[in-house]
């Protein structure tokens, strides 16, 4: 059996990598993928704890995270495509000037 606490640590590392990706990158597609990675890391941690408690609720939560991510990606990509259709560069800092 694999060490459960190390899997939680791995989940935290993936979460941090995703957070860095959202904050450092400017391409909306890559930012969005990094955010998906954060969700995935959380799902991994839920499944790990579900295993250690022998409790199916954690797995149900992970399943719901996957389903929600599907809906979110559908909407997100639709928004990104519609932004792109009207403006031909895809960089968040060009897209929106940060005022006040």
């Amino acid at each position: 059996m694999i060490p459960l606490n190390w899997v939680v640590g791995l989940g935290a590392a993936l979460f941090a990598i995703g957070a860095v990706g959202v904050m450092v990158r400017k391409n909306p597609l890559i930012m969005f993928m990094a955010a998906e990675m954060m969700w995935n890391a959380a799902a991994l941690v839920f499944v790990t704890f579900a295993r250690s408690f022998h409790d199916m609720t954690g797995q149900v939560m992970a399943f719901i995270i996957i389903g929600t991510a599907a809906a979110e990606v559908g909407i997100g990509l639709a928004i990104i495509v519609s932004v792109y259709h009207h403006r031909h560069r895809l960089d968040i800092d060009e897209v929106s000037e940060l005022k006040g």
Partner: protein
Amino acid sequence: MIAFVILAILALGGGVGVVVARQPVHSALFLILNILALAIFYILLSAEFLAAAQVIVYAGAIMVLFLFVVTLLTAGKDDAEPQEGLAGQRLTAGILAVLAGGGLAVLGVLYPSQSIPFGLPPNFGNLHGMGLNLWNQDFVYLAAVALMLLTAAIGVLVLNRPQRRQHRAGVKGEDS
């Protein structure tokens, strides 16, 4: 333990790849690597159904959608990101996130949750067990996810509405 190390290296490599890749296509491919590594983790954590869902929904549907959009939007463009403006601020935020994540990882490793030593209950994590949960007490969550997918369907229609229909509806001030 060996399995854990190999899979962890794969997952972390995929994760770092997503963030550092220059082209979004490469990011998407790295994310698929990451997702597949997590799917194998799910099998090792006796969540067979979730492993299947992860591969089918995430690696199958979501990432294919991503790849499609990436190729649609960035085909034949060099994607060098401009390095100006908030670079310092972003770097600080990134360093903070790394520190926080490192702290979390150490916490997760040092403080294991109370683990139940004896054997798993029957049907833990397989299709039967998930079905018993999702179609009994947790059905309402499934219904909520269905409503979210409905939102996504409406959203795609709204956002990429054909322009003609808007004009026929008598738009007052449209600047698109």
